[in-house]
């Protein structure tokens, strides 16, 4: 279809819509729409929060266990508590740089319900005592920037952002900031560097944990767009209502994007921890089945950085700890489904290429390693692979993120673990992430790699061809003419 289309509204099965209730609502992105539509009344939560006082607001978020939705799944309330006492000013940086391959949820939130994000920012700023909030939207998302700019203008005009909000002593500025195209800027310390006007290269942790030494080296809370979007519903309802959805360890809902070879790809809000991948792929309200006539070959459970899963994993619930225990991650809610028509080498190459292009270049193992991973996979795909290439790939990976890996001798012994969480020889997790798709593909589909490599080695070599070959003297003569 031509035009700036957006996906179908989220479907929910017996669970309240926490963050997606205005996705399908015409005009839900305006201040009037925010106040009058959706699963709660907009800008009521901030009133309640202002009545509670900042400490009680922080305690509520902690009690509810609002997990970070940006990738690492760290509880927001605990993160807020890491800001050191008595150090001012504090800042909030909202991470709207969504660019993990397969991830599509923050953009929907920004385009469809910008006021929900603004109210979430207000609640967070009030709780931690932030002077300013910087809403960092990915550069390529022009429409999201427009929607947020318009929403901020409305909210300032209505006295909901700015000086003495709703007649109280709470004053905060929310500033729309936008990037310029670099995946690594999604990493929180790189985000901060970028916001300071620098190249988006990550900082070393420790000492630069943002909560202690963030923007301008002051205490800074970095939260994902979806994380903060949960707060208005939470304060309109209650900790108990929030914790009644999902599981004990992962309460609430989360947005997932199911893409690739399913009949009904889409963005869905699901209760955390209870839905299985099978339901997500097969239920008519979600994926509605693997493409008709095809079978599942593999899937990515949490974005391009996550190790792959296979058909035996489909009955696992989307619960962070369970998926972590199985050697992968839920990451950013990006589920990419691949059927049997997918070439494992080609898919691995595409992801390797992504990491090679997006490495910031600060650490040698990542800068050089990701480039070599791409080169080697490209030559295998092109039919120029060398028999040693698989071990070489694993060795390069081992230098970025130390093993154990399925090197040939280990495979014979049945060892095939991908280390998870990955070990790092680098400043940030981008480098180690680049290893995951490649080792996943090799560990499961080594035969596909072998087939591509063997083909090239079938160039006929016979006795006659040796006899026809020029003698050393002839070839040297010949060479003298041409290779001056």
């Amino acid at each position, binding site marked *: 279809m031509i035009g700036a289309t957006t996906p179908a509204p989220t479907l929910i099965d017996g669970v309240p819509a926490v963050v997606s209730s205005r996705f399908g609502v015409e005009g839900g992105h305006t201040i009037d729409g925010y106040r009058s539509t959706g699963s709660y009344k907009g800008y009521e939560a901030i009133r309640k929060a202002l009545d509670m006082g900042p400490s009680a607001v922080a305690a509520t978020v902690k009690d509810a266990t609002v997990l970070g939705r940006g990738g690492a799944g760290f509880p927001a309330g605990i993160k807020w508590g890491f800001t050191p006492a008595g150090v001012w000013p504090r800042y909030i940086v909202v991470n709207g740089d969504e660019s993990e391959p397969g991830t599509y949820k923050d953009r929907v939130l920004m385009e469809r319900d910008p006021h929900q994000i603004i109210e979430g920012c207000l609640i967070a700023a009030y709780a931690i005592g932030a002077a300013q909030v910087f809403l960092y939207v990915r550069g390529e998302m022009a429409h999201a920037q427009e929607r947020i700019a318009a929403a901020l203008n409305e909210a300032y005009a209505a006295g909901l952002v700015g000086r003495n909000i709703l007649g109280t002593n709470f004053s905060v500025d929310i500033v729309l900031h936008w990037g310029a195209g670099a995946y690594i800027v999604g990493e929180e310390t790189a985000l901060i560097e970028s916001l*300071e006007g620098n190249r988006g290269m990550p900082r070393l942790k420790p000492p630069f944990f943002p909560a202690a030494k963030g923007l301008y080296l002051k205490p800074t809370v970095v939260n994902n767009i979806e994380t903060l979007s949960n707060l208005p519903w939470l304060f309109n309802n209650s900790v108990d209502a929030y914790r009644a959805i999902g599981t004990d360890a992962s309460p609430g809902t989360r947005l997932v994007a199911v893409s690739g070879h399913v009949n009904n790809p889409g963005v869905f809000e699901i209760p955390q921890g209870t839905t299985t991948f099978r339901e997500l792929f097969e239920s008519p309200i979600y994926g509605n089945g693997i493409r008709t006539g095809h079978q599942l070959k593999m899937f990515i459970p949490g974005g391009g950085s996550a190790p792959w899963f296979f058909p035996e994993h489909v009955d696992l619930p989307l619960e962070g700890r369970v998926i972590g225990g199985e050697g992968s991650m839920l990451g950013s809610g990006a589920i990419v489904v691949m059927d049997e028509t997918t070439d494992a080498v080609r898919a691995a190459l595409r992801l390797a290429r992504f990491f090679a292009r997006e490495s910031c270049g600060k650490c040698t193992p990542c800068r050089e390693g990701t480039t070599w991973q791409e080169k080697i996979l490209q030559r295998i795909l092109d039919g120029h692979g060398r028999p040693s290439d698989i071990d070489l790939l694993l060795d390069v990976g081992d230098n970025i993120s130390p093993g154990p890996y399925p090197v040939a001798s280990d495979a014979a012994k049945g060892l095939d673990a991908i280390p998870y969480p990955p070990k790092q020889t680098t400043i940030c997790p981008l480098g180690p992430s680049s290893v995951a798709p490649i080792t996943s593909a090799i560990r499961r589909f080594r035969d596909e790699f072998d087939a591509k490599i063997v083909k090239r080695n079938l160039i006929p070599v016979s006795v006659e061809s040796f006899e026809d070959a020029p003698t050393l003297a002839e070839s040297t003569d010949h060479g003298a003419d041409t290779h001056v």
Partner: protein
Amino acid sequence: MSRLTPENVELAKQIIRRYPRPKSALIPLCHLAQEQDGHLADDAMVHIGELVGVTSAEVLGTASFYEMFKRHEVGKYCVNICTNISCQLMGGEELLEHAEQTLGIRSGSTTNDGLFTLEDVECIAACTEAPALQVNYRYFHRISNDDFDQMIDELRSGRLDDVVPPHGVLAKVRQDLAEEQIANITPPETQVMPRWIADEAAKNDPAASEGGQA
């Protein structure tokens, strides 16, 4: 020309005011310059350096890190086709090939008439709507080869002018934060406990009102 125009200097100053430190405005200002000229000109970078108080080399240092800043002229329309994993699965690479044929150029180059620059890009967060592409950062979802050709025709004839502004123009709505609206721009050097935190601390423990938040 390609220093910022007087109107854009006013806009630039407004943007700079929103940040505790001027250098933070560097990327938004580079976008402003790109909006003005269609690409990020050398003179504009010098000017931006003057405005935010850094050398032009520092502006270049930052700008050259980011893919969206084009330091040379590009087409009026940048057609960015996603070939990352979800789009690859749904034919993004084949769509790119088709686009190369339709436009008669290789990915990474610009048509002779200066209208189109073609690029293959990383995930643009439209993965469930694959294959997806952007023209000047406006989304086009689930694009078939025919859709693509039709889109190019419509761009050529100007029928998509409302949807797709010329390259360089990002958001058509800006946050207008007038000076008198600004509440709390707080430079890092200040050690001020916000009012509402101080008031709560005083209420809970009138004796130790300046002790910081526990």
